[in-house]
């Protein structure tokens, strides 16, 4: 075997590692750990540290009788938000009667934190936070906190807390110097929860808290803190014995992304916590594991000058292309060729980024096309709708394949326009069978019972799809539950029609159940316009007709859509029958891509229960397909009628398969964490909504994924 010289290998490797630009672990990042509340901090008290941008930390914290599950997302480098689901045995809110034996109190809470300044020079990091500022306020506190690393191993934190964090060793609010408004904190008006308790913020007694963290090594951190939370209500109910405000703990990181915490709380309790950290900015498989693309074939100079070719060969060309594209998971459905040009319409079924499919198609074309063809127009479709028209020159493809900066130049030279109104193409019969089906296991978690908040259901689903033509698609999904609850639970009734609150009955009685069974027709009625009509059993609880029209120019950051649905409520058995309730529901929607990683959407219209209102949603959308966001729906249903939570709100998360697996895939895992499923502000669920379908092929998303063009 070849002899290699190794003398500088190690040095070279070490040097090469630095290329990633990974900053050395800064003192303040070292050993960032999470509290029992799932926020960056000490043990029960927060610190001023911010997690790396985009980081998602899921923390479970336990001590006797208390359970807290928290999902914390670093929304921007300075802003983070937390959603918490907690339960406390035999707890009731202050002012309420003592609980009966065996009662378990469940609550959801939201936090926001903002890092006012990062650590630097003599300055500590400083953050301000609102804990449990929405909801029933069990954990409601405000704080301002500073954290400073004294050296690589030692970090100190000191803060001032209000509300719950001002209950131990509290003193008169220093803000009282500004106004007597701050002197007293009014009693919480819990109502149905869900309202922002601005009348509480930074009012009443304040107290100091603080602590130290000592990093023994990269894996182990020891902590001690002075807590300003007296656990007053818990002590009153005899749920905890607070003997000391001092807490001691350790955090162990067995491997990056995992933390285990153990602590001794308030002189009487042992607490345990575990955190799993994910960061969309760090792929488990950098780049991806897809097989390499075929190399570009470059025409020799003499054949490049050809002006025409034997068009009689068109049939063979079409067959060869169809087969070669199918190898890349691309279904060719039409093409038009001339002496010097080719235009193709196709559906990419494999690659998340349409740009990657385009690059692969471009490479194949350089190998298959007669030399005279110089201009290549690619028209990607999804659900039969051509989303854009991207024109490339073959000479650019030949020239830029291995050129540094070739990806950006390719994008700059591509002409991206609307595909509507283009002349007809020669249809190409699909290679794949029009029928596809699958069977897969599922596990679902439901929140449909105010007293027993979490139910699960597991079994399998059978899905089937028949494609009559690329834009006329029949599809269905049948669910068979194998294990799960047989108690449909109960959600307190309201004055509204029961459009969603019987979800438990659908889950229990609809077994087997048809989740959906629809026929959908998609079209391009004109320039910048997209349309959809779907009929059938649209979703588990409603069937009927859904029609949608979207206006979305290819290069625009915005789109406007209208959707109208006439629906009838389905029977609980989730078969073909219907109940009496029927309604017209629909929305006008505005979509906006802020081009800084954030996407906004506002839907205004009539909801399933006949209530009128609007939903505002904001998502952080990562170029690699991750989406994390939240939404709020406010309708004309009074908070008292809505019931617990006052209005519908939730956070949602979508993770692309290719991130998790490394292999190319267009699928994603999506989930929404929401308040109790209630009837106000409930929206119809229907597959194939246009904006999300179409935007993959539009300028912004093509640009975001363009780094994959040459992959």
């Amino acid at each position: 075997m070849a002899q290699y010289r190794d003398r500088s290998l190690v040095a070279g490797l070490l040097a090469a590692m630095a290329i990633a630009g990974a900053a050395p672990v800064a003192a303040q990042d070292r050993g960032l750990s999470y509290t029992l509340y799932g926020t960056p901090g000490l043990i029960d008290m927060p610190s001023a540290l911010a997690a790396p941008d985009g980081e998602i930390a899921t923390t479970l914290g336990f001590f006797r009788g208390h359970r807290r599950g928290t999902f914390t997302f670093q929304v921007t480098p300075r802003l983070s938000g937390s959603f918490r689901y907690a339960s406390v045995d035999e707890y009731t809110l202050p002012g309420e009667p003592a609980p009966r034996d065996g009662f378990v109190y469940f609550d959801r809470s939201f936090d926001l934190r903002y890092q006012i300044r990062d650590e630097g020079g003599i300055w500590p990091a400083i953050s301000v936070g609102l804990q449990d500022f929405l909801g029933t306020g069990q954990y409601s506190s405000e704080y301002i906190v500073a954290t400073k690393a004294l050296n690589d191993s030692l970090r100190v934190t000191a803060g001032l807390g209000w509300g719950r964090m001002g209950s131990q060793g509290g003193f008169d609010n220093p803000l009282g110097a500004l106004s007597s408004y701050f002197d007293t904190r009014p009693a919480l008006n819990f109502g149905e929860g869900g309202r922002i308790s601005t009348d509480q913020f930074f009012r009443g007694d304040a107290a100091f808290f603080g602590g130290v963290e000592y990093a023994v090594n990269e894996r182990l951190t020891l902590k001690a803190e002075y807590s300003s939370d007296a656990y007053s209500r818990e002590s009153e109910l005899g749920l905890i014995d607070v003997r000391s405000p001092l807490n001691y703990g350790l955090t162990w990181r067995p491997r990056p992304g995992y933390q285990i915490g153990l602590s001794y709380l308030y002189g009487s309790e042992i607490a345990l916590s575990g955190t799993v950290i994910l960061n969309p900015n760090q792929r488990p498989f950098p780049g991806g594991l897809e097989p390499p693309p075929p190399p570009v074939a470059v025409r020799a100079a003499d054949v490049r000058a050809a002006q025409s070719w034997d068009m009689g060969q068109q049939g063979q060309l079409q067959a060869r292309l169809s087969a070669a594209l199918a190898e890349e998971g691309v279904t060719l459905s039409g093409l038009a060729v001339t002496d010097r040009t080719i235009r193709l319409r196709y559906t990419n079924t494999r690659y998340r980024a349409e740009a990657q499919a385009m690059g692969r198609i471009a490479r194949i074309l350089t190998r298959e096309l007669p030399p005279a063809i110089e201009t290549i127009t690619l028209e990607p479709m999804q659900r039969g709708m051509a989303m854009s028209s991207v024109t490339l020159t073959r000479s650019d493809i030949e020239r830029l394949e291995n050129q540094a900066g070739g990806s950006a130049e390719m994008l700059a030279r591509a002409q991206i326009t609307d595909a509507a109104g283009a002349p007809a193409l020669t249809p190409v019969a699909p290679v794949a069978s029009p029928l596809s089906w699958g069977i897969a296991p599922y596990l679902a978690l439901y929140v449909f019972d105010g007293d027993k908040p979490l139910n699960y259901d597991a079994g399998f689903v059978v899905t089937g799809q028949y494609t009559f033509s690329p834009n006329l698609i029949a599809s269905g999904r049948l669910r068979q539950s194998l294990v799960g609850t047989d108690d449909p639970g109960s959600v307190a009734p309201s004055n509204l029609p029961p459009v969603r609150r019987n979800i438990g009955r659908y889950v229990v009685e609809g077994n087997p159940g048809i989740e959906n069974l629809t026929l959908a027709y998609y079209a391009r009625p004109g320039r910048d316009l997209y349309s959809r009509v779907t009929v059938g059993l649209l979703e588990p609880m409603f069937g009927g007709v859904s029609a949608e029209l979207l206006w979305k120019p290819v290069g625009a950051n915005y789109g406007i859509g209208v959707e109208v649905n006439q629906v009838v409520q389905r029977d609980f058995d989730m078969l073909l029958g219907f109940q009496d309730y029927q309604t017209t529901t629909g929305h006008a929607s505005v979509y906006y891509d802020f081009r800084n990683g954030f996407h906004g959407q506002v839907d205004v219209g009539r909801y399933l229960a006949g209530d009128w209102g609007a939903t505002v949603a904001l998502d952080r959308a990562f170029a690699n397909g991750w989406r994390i966001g939240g939404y709020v729906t406010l309708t004309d249903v009074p908070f008292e009628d809505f019931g617990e939570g006052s209005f519908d709100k939730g956070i949602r998360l979508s993770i692309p398969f290719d991130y998790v697996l490394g292999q190319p895939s267009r699928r994603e895992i999506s989930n929404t964490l929401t308040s109790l499923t209630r009837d106000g502000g409930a929206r119809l669920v229907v597959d194939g909504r246009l904006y999300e379908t179409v935007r993959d092929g539009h300028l912004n998303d093509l640009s975001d994924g363009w780094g994959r063009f040459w992959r």
Partner: protein
Amino acid sequence: MSAMVKGVVAAAMLATLAGCGDQFQGGLLLPLASRAVPSLTGGGNGVQPTLQPGFTPQEMAADLESYMIIGVPTLGPPIPVRRIMDNGTAETWLAQVGFTAAFVDGMLVATRGLGSDLMAANTGAVRRALAAGGGTAQRAMDVMDDQDRITTLQFECEIVATGTETIDLGLRQVATRTFEENCASAKAIFTNLYWLDSAGEIVQSRQLVSPTVAYLRSNRL
């Protein structure tokens, strides 16, 4: 055709199969499991086995010019690769385990299928400096980050002749002149190594792919 080459090639192929074959045929679970336990897949960095014809010792012996040996640390021992495209400028070589490497006049300009690939590189000035016996040159390398963004890294490089060495390419002993290419940017440094034969061809090299994949070693047969 010497029996030794057949032996080298066959051993390399066996090592390849043992080290990386069937890597992800476990479907969806294995890649996930391998994240937790890197040793499950031999620490391999993601190549799919696409068993291609064209790698039997007989085929290799019949057309040695179309093969060379490439080694990447994440894939284990060096393995044979076959030229699948010659564009006149760039030559692309395919490994049986399913990655490709493209060279322009012996200089590595791109890889695919290694995960954290070299997306593209401009190496013309470095190649001219090698031909001239040394000098300084700039090189540019495209890398892709975890958000699908391509960054072009610019390096200032110094090409230094380091002496002569007779090397064993497996089939033949070749007298070579040796060179180091020391490159630096504000954030990183690395060193590529080259062995040039009497005709000025790069017959053996060690060139940087990316920080994760590190160096790719190549030698002609």
